[in-house]
């Protein structure tokens, strides 16, 4: 039963996406079909969340290279984020995308990307994960292309190039890991074969470093972060929302699996790889926030913000301590929720009012109070104002860093996190302030309701409630993730 469900979860969106272009029967039925697939997928994932651990080999290419699915804690976490996130964003996309303007292509790649992500989340070994990782890149790239402008095509290819280049770096690491690991299957705590590794530690460390930097391209980690600020602003808002909130997390998942399920934290702890990765992540955190602070195009600002925030997660992963990992995993959920919210708000501003730049957003609160309120709650959560959700993850990240006992990094991590939080406040809160309080001298924006239909603002309110509520009622989540994190050391 569970095994059948595992296959279904992966195949349903893939088949749905592949078959969608065949059913040319008007916009309404197309949307109904997409919605049905998304709801079915979310339902399947909900059932999977309650299932015990399961494993299933689909077929074997050779006896070491097998394509297998596996349900464990990490896959539950990422699968839930992906399925629910795609559902909410999908509902929003129905009112965002004009009927009949290439929506069929968009939605079919949307579903394909979800299927690829589901496959990646459920992958049972490195081979399978790599396979779906590439598939996710390929399937999400056309979403950036939606506008068919020259800029969007260039951005899409930049995305493709960065992701592929990163993936090839990672592939190098995978080749070598298949030699040094006892198995390519995911084993909590890593499966390095000490006998095989003996004498090749330096080589392996270099390769693991390259692999993580490679997968880091997807997560927007310095130095391969360049695609994010290019691709996100040109993609339609729902695409940027899932790209930033969910698909970029595929990089996080890949690094998590590589680091904790293949190599094992013990092998890297205290080595130069450990410190350089932490350094890169912190640099990205700071640099992303700073660039976002200086950026005036709203969606580009959010993209830089993603660069920074996803590296919060990576910092948590690279701390190699249970508390840090817990904070990182928490931030996966919270950031997904908040960043989808913020991108969808940006989408609403663009779609309903045609506002792209930050300074144009003055007084927008008069016309779109619900949207701006949702944005504000999301912004507070992202800054990490208690009791909103970002605060909880930041607490664990800082605790993990201070507990880790690493030289310099134990205090540098919280300091950088807080400075970045300050910058986050600096680039998000003025939008709220100017939006709600433009001052009296500004000529009034039409004060009538420009929110769009309920399908447009309801997802925003839902996400805003989640980004606040997940923080307040996070105890259960934290317990689950802490025990998950503790099992990896």
């Amino acid at each position, binding site marked *: 039963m569970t095994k059948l469900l595992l296959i279904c979860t992966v195949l349903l969106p893939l088949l749905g996406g592949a078959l969608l272009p065949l059913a040319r029967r008007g916009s309404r039925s197309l949307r109904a079909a997409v919605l049905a697939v998304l709801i079915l997928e979310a339902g399947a994932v909900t059932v999977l969340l309650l299932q015990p651990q399961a494993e299933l080999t689909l077929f074997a290419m050779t006896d070491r290279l097998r394509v297998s699915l596996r349900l464990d804690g990490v896959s539950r976490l990422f699968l839930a984020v992906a399925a629910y996130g795609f559902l909410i964003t999908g509902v929003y996309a129905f009112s965002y995308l004009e009927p009949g303007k290439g929506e069929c292509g968009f939605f079919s790649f949307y579903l394909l990307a979800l299927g690829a992500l589901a496959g990646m989340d459920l992958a049972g070994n490195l081979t399978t994960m790599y396979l779906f990782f590439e598939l996710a890149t390929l399937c999400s790239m056309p979403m950036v292309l939606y506008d068919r402008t020259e800029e969007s095509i260039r951005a899409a290819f930049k995305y493709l190039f960065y992701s592929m280049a990163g993936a090839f770096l990672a592939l190098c690491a995978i080749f070598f890991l298949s030699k040094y690991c006892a198995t390519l299957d995911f084993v909590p705590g890593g499966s390095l074969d000490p006998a095989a590794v003996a004498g090749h530690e330096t080589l392996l460390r270099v390769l693991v470093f390259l692999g993580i930097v490679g997968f880091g391209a997807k997560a927007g980690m*310095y130095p391969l972060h360049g695609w994010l600020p290019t691709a996100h602003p040109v993609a339609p808002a729902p695409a940027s929302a899932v790209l930033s909130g969910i698909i970029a997390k595929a990089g996080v998942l890949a690094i998590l699996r590589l680091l904790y399920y293949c190599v094992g934290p013990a092998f890297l702890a205290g080595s130069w790889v450990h410190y350089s990765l932490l350094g890169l992540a912190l*640099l990205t955190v700071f640099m992303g926030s700073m660039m976002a602070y*200086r950026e005036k195009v709203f969606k580009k600002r959010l993209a830089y913000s993603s660069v920074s925030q996803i590296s919060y997660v990576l910092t948590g992963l690279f701390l190699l301590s249970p508390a840090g990992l817990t904070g990182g995993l928490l931030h996966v959920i919270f950031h997904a929720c908040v960043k989808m919210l913020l991108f969808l708000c940006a989408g609403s501003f663009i779609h309903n009012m045609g506002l792209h730049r930050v300074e144009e957003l003055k007084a927008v609160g008069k016309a779109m109070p619900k949207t701006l309120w949702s944005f504000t709650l999301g912004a507070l959560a992202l800054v*990490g*104002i208690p009791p909103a959700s970002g605060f*909880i993850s930041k607490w664990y990240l800082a605790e993990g860093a201070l*507990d880790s006992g690493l030289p310099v990094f134990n205090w540098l991590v919280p300091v950088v996190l807080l400075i970045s939080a300050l910058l986050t406040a600096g680039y998000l809160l003025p939008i709220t*302030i100017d939006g709600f309080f433009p001052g009296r001298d500004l000529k009034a924006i039409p004060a009538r309701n420009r929110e769009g239909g309920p399908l447009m603002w309801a997802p925003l309110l839902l996400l805003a409630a989640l980004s606040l509520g997940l923080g307040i009622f996070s105890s259960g989540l*934290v317990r689950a993730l802490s025990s998950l994190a503790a099992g990896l050391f």
Partner: protein
Amino acid sequence: MLILLLILMPMALAPMSWLLGRRSKSLRNGFVVAAGFLELALALWAALRGGSAALPELCVLGFRFELDGFRRIYTLIFAGMWAMTLLFSPDYFAHHRKRNRYYFFQLLTLGATMGVFLAADLYTSFVFFEIMSFTSFAWVIQEETAGAIKAAKTYLAVAVIGGLAALMGLFLLWNSLGTLRISELCAAARAAGRSPTLYVAGGCILLGYGAKAGMFPVHIWLPKAHPVAPAPASALLSGALTKTGVWGILAISCNLFRGDPAWGALILGLGAVTMLLGAVLALFSVDLKRTLACSSMSQIGFILSGVGMICLLGEENALAARGTLLHMVNHSLFKLVLFLCAGAVYRNLHRLDLNEIRGFGRGKPLLMLCFLLGAMGISGVPLLNGYVSKTLLHEAILEGLPHYGWPLKAVEWIFLFSGGLTAAYMTKLFVAIFVEKHPTRQTEFDADKDWLSRPAALALGCSGAVIPILGFTADLSMNALADLGTDFLHGEPLAHAVRYLSLENLKGGAVSLAIGAAVYLLLVRTWMRKDGNYVNRWPGRLDLEELVYRPLLLKLLPGIFGWISAIFGENRLTVPLCRGLRRAARRIALLFGENRLTVPLCRGLRRAARRIALLFGENRLTVPLCRGLRRAARRIALLFGENRLTVPLARGVWKSVEGAAVGFGENRLSEPAARGIFAGAEAVSRAVSNRLEALAPGRRIGLSFGLLALALGLIGALIRLLSLL
């Protein structure tokens, strides 16, 4: 449960008031006033019951609340202040826009402020502190004027920076001590020992909470935000929200750094600067609410110096603790009534400049009495409550004098001088509003009988009445308050009762008031007046915010770090560099691919190869050569085959062989010879047979056998002979 209700009920009522306000404004006004008094009733009930509560499942670490003596006093004060301001508000806001928003955030902030004070651990307090910062932001920006927006942004920036600093402090404390429970901090800190980490943590928390309290050098928001906020909100900002900052400072000073002289000296120093700076600024200002705001800052300085003395005096901190506590309480009450008076003025005139509101208070006894009580109280006039708390603080400083020498003496003089300035600026305000006459509008002011509605007047009167009640019954009421509250401050029990009206104590008050009178007469009446008008001596250019913080935080740091980040991102340097690299790579790739060099080269090579191949194939040289060779070979072959030489030769040989064969065959020589031999043999055999026939048969047989035997013998002998060879 009751405690949770104190916090959550206003927060739950806030959206209800908002929804109600969309239907009916008057209903909403009634609702919020009722909410305020309901909270007051709850606070009274809770203050009688005490106890503690917890929400362990929320926000991971859980929330813990406690209602001890100090918190009982302050829940009551807060609930009372909110009830009074809410009662005052409908009248004040009668012609304002966006009231719904104001009331919504008013109630939210009430819940959050309760949460800050009732918290039993720093974590809980911090969470509510942040909520409070953000909800009270809406107060400051309520009027939406340019000044309000700027002040609100400053307020928010300070709140966010302070909040993050405090959070860093909490991280460090939680990590090094493992607890944030206020009651456990002291023991944990002593167990862990004094480490730099602890001081860094304390400094961070001090920065965060000090910002809210208006402590120097993070006071910058206070003189800007208080004047622009609506008066009821200013009263709360000044009287209540600054106290949450003081609460945080108290929580760490009296627990984490209990009896730590270094920490005490730091707080005392900051307190002294704040006290003096606030008082000087208040004196210079000609704006009613700004004067009051700066006065708040100065009074917070008084309170902080008391906190510093608590730490400095260690075991003998009874006076300091009682003075600090009472001055907090008193200041809340003074600022409530003073800002409500300012609100009454602003409600009618929509002006705050002293030159324009001059004489407004004439002929309005309630307003005058309330303002006078507040002003006298805060100036430390004997018989009112401000005198009691200031005396206690002064006593505490005097108590420390033998231990700490001249620095403390300096602080004492700053203390007395600031007290004097307090009296001076309060006199300035009082004289301007209630004694002087407006040059043009005085008759209009005097005719204004409808200057405050009844509920608002009730709020004002109640707020004013508390001051003399506490003052006149100081030995009873104020001592009781002090006894109730000092546990939180870890004040030691009082060794002997303080006689507030003793000559010694009256002298201190008198010195202060004398300084005040001198300053007023010598400075305010002369230097600060010109042609009968008050001159604005506000040192606008010496604004710490404009001079230091804004350039530093908005220009310098983002500039520097932005530049540094840009180095790592796409910029004028890296983009061309990347392009250059890509071009170079392409060149290099082309170098190894098809290009102007390689293509001809390859062609040349191919041609050369073909030439070489041709060289070894059929060409003008090899073809004739081969032909020649073939011919030669054929010749050679012919040489050994049939040719003009061999054929005749072979024929000749053949013929000769034939001839020879003929020579041995039947020829002219051999034939006759053979015939002859044959004939001879025939003749011999005939002769033999003839002879044999002549013989008898027996003999013939015998002879035949004999001959045969002879022949056989001859043959045998011949064989024998041959074998011998």
